[in-house]
């Protein structure tokens, strides 16, 4: 599903430049649930941004579902994001003046799906994250865990190939975190490929594979025995 070869990325900081990713190589098969771990500054978020086409790489190869991601202009990147990827952010990033339903329907709007169909779809996905009854509520009326579940529903609504989650539990307490991870595991069990960036070991062990980053290189890449989040809820 994802192939990455010799990926480099550096940021210019005034006159000097900061080399963040120093040659990353890894592949992700379809249906995997991968945790990308590392302390802050290890380059894990940068890697996720490049995977998410929110940022471009300086050097290296990135193939997503047999499509080489290279020299994208903004318009093309937007289309690929819409088609291939679903995002879940630490700070939820819901649009605060839109109801839960409208937030979930937004990626479908950019796919050009007619309004009525959008709403049916969106409601279906809200139902799957257990928030059907909250569809008309604004984000400000939802709890943190509910917001993240709306965000996950939104990410899933466009039916992406890969779900990218950047610290999805970073802003949540332990119990809510496990609930969200439970949801992510269930989506994974249905066959979706998911990448989770986290610095929490317990969250990482709820995935099937852990990739450990340090100073811009992968120092460890191992399969783990998945801890089921439902056991802790």
């Amino acid at each position: 599903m994802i192939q990455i070869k010799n990926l480099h990325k550096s940021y210019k900081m005034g006159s000097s430049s900061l080399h963040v990713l120093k040659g990353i190589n890894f592949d992700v098969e379809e249906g995997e649930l991968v945790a990308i771990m590392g302390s802050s500054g290890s380059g894990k978020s940068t890697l996720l941004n490049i995977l998410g086409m929110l940022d471009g790489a300086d050097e290296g190869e990135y193939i997503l579902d047999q499509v080489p991601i290279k020299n994208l202009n903004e318009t093309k990147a937007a289309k690929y994001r819409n088609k291939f990827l679903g995002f879940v952010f630490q700070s939820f990033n819901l649009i605060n003046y839109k109801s839960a339903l409208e937030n979930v329907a937004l990626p479908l709007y950019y796919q050009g799906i007619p309004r009525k169909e959008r709403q049916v779809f969106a409601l279906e996905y809200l139902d799957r994250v257990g928030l059907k009854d909250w569809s008309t509520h604004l984000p400000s009326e939802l709890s943190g865990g509910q917001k993240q579940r709306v965000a996950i529903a939104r990410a899933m609504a466009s039916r992406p190939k890969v779900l990218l989650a950047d610290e999805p539990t970073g802003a949540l307490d332990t119990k809510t975190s496990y609930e969200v991870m439970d949801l992510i595991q269930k989506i994974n069990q249905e066959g979706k490929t998911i990448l989770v960036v986290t610095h929490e070991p317990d969250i990482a062990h709820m995935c099937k594979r852990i990739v450990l980053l340090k100073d811009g290189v992968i120092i460890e890449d191992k399969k783990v025995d998945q801890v089921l989040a439902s056991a802790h809820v």
Partner: protein
Amino acid sequence: MFNRDRWREIFETIGKNKLRTFLSGFTVALGIFIFIILFGLGNGLKNTFQEFFLDDASNAIFIYPGRTSMPYKGFKANRRIEFKNEDVEDIKQNFPMFTEYVTPRITRSELTSFKNESNTYTTRAVAPGHQFIEKTILMKGRYINQMDLNKKTKNAVIGRLVAKDLFKKEDPIGKYIDVGSTVFKVVGVFQDDGGDNEERYIYIPYTTRQLLEKSNDKVGQIIVTFPKELGHVGAVAFEKSLKKFFKDKKSVDPRDPNGIYFQNLTDDLKQSQQFAVVLQLIVSFVGLGTLIAGIIGISNIMVFVVKERTKELGIRKALGATPRSVIQMVLQESVFITAISGYVGLFLGIAVLKNVGLSLEEYFIKNPFIDFGTAFAATIVLIIFGAIAGYIPAKRASRIKPIVALRDE
């Protein structure tokens, strides 16, 4: 542009961000409103000015007799100059190319009465051409004509206020009034834009006046109009030769400043036209200034709006919005709001101007107005600048990488 789904998205955004919508709409509406009010009041000032200074024909030279102050050709100083009928004819014959109308004017004050009403009015004994010099507007009946002059008829044309004073609601045409113990028949009623005083005159044939004053041929003053095509330079030259001719004829020293007075209205006209130009400049400057202030206001609001939406636009981009669709959304929304509120301001402004109407006349503002073309153009300009002001930050926002826009503050 005509994508129904996009319009729905925009209406939703507008409906749910009322403060933002109100702020940008209010700025535009206020800008246009103030522009129209100031421009309209400026036009009102111009109207008043034109009424004050441009009431009478401007292509006229007034000639008044006086007393000489220098001895000349054997006459001693302090001699009274008098004009006669033959002087009028002489002007007509000697300057046929330069004169339009030549009319004498003999002014007398007379007690005038009809039935039990009486009052003292100024009578002006004139020739038919006088109508065009004073820009007299006839409401009823006719003016003094050539037949009145030939037959020395006792016909009078009275001002609107004379008719109002003496006749109340009666129709004055065909009635007889007593003017200084002589009975005149009213043949016309006139009005004049020059104000109340101008409407309290009574015009009679000058030949009749001369008949009443022992059949003399004396003329009080002479008014000459010249073709407008002469222009200011031509008018000054004409005045000069007229002066030379007249002083020579009446044996007045060419250097004598008294004796005969000439008043050339074209001088006044030139001054008042310069004043009008200055007034127009001030009005335009005020209008332009208001418009620029409005443009700056709407630009500020647009920059603020886009700044406030940076995060939202980042989210939209992460979800698959293309830069183009981001710009289109921001622009379509801003143009829609500015257009609607622009026209609200436009019609409010025009409505206020209409209502103010004549109530500001005592402050020298008469009938303030703005022509619809100017108001419309100003609104369009504001909408266009609002769009440009929205486009630049929208373009920048659309270029921001979503990751930057989404970064937590």
